[in-house]
């Protein structure tokens, strides 16, 4: 997982010590949880399973309502399933599926992966966007997108069509783009997350 260090130093930049850990008791004691990630969905789930982290994530995020931030693959993993290289079940926190961009029927060429800076259109209010103007650009790198089947979408982004670029459901916040690589607007999201009141 190449971008762990990037995420950690972005948190440092906004004045927060983030611990990189796969240790259950560290996760249990953390005030907030971040799941970044690059790579494939199946590998991501496999790692979480092998490290025995699925139960503790469910316990802390779903039962204990600890603030959770998913980034990129970390957003996709909270869906019910992904169709990346076959079907893989996700953490099932949000009624959603992860499917590949398909532009075969379009005249105009859209490249995959969707990589680069693209802007949001705000939907449902998401407090992590506080202080950031709508239509701001964030950095994306992905070939699959999140199809939400419940009303949790806080922004969409236009790439041939409007796909879901962020969701929020209770204490769960997730972004398809990389806040840690999106300069000042991205750091603002992380700062807002750090400043969230934790229930415990």
């Amino acid at each position, binding site marked *: 997982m190449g971008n762990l260090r990037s995420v950690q130093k*972005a948190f440092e930049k906004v004045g927060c010590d983030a611990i990189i850990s796969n240790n259950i008791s560290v996760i249990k004691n953390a005030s907030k949880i971040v799941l970044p990630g690059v790579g494939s969905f199946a590998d991501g789930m496999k790692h979480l399973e092998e490290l025995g982290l699925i139960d503790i994530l469910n316990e802390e995020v779903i039962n204990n309502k600890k603030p959770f931030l998913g980034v990129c693959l970390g957003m996709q993993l909270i869906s019910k399933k992904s169709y990346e290289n076959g079907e893989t079940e996700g953490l099932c926190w949000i009624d959603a599926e992860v499917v590949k961009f398909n532009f075969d029927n379009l005249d105009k060429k859209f490249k995959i992966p969707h*990589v*680069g800076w693209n802007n949001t259109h705000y939907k449902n209010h998401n407090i992590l966007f506080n202080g950031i103007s709508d239509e701001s650009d964030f950095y994306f*790198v992905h070939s699959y997108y999140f199809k939400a089947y419940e009303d949790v979408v806080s922004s969409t982004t236009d*790439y041939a069509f409007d796909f879901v670029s962020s969701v929020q459901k209770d204490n769960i916040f997730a972004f398809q783009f990389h806040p840690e690589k999106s300069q*000042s607007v991205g750091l603002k999201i992380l700062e807002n997350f750090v400043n969230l009141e934790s229930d415990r």
Partner: protein
Amino acid sequence: MLKHRIIPCVLLKDWQLVKSIHFDSFRTIGHPTSTARIYNARNVDELIVLDIDASLNGEEINTELITDIADECFMPLTIGGGITTIDDIYKVLNAGADKIAINSKALDDLEFIKKSSSIFGAQCIVCSIDVKKIDDEYKVFSKSKGVLDINPLVLALKYEEYGAGEILLTSVDCEGSTNGYDIELIKLFKDKLEIPIILNGGMGKPEDAIEAIQNGADAIAAAYIFHFSQYTPSDIKNALKSNQIDVRL
């Protein structure tokens, strides 16, 4: 709307950032971390750093310096130079890079692209192609082997097939010239690839960027203009914007 990216592309040599002219002579840009900090402050879209001590002289990849540079970058960082093993990619990513660029290794070993792309994802693998025009024909140029009898577009399509996520296309003839990008070259590539093309080499003024993007470049890379001219990345973006080209301001 996806924006066209403006990307400084600089070389790492003797612990300094440098800019090459036709891959030959070098001019010093500055200290890597302070330069990275300036790029970050100037809100550039991305940064590409190629470690030429590692690629040309076979020295160990300078992960210490890459870490220092990455620590200043809150934008995407691509690192290239001397990457020949999967372990090298792990090292560079762990040092804080988001993507890696490969050139010689990709030329020698297509399977390496496939393997690295399957482990790290295509989005992480930038394949770099250097091009030289010989007798009115574009040929792939290798720093170690010289001009090769390979068509750069054919090679790019091969790289794409094997899992490259982006192509960094550099015109050796235009590189460092400030006479503009090789427009004829990018025209050959227009609409041929599914993956983005970053065109590199020759930007001397904002109009060059406009021409490159209008003729098919998804992103443009440059170095000289940002250090040895009055233009900043913002000047270039503003010029693009006023020509109805979408950029991040």
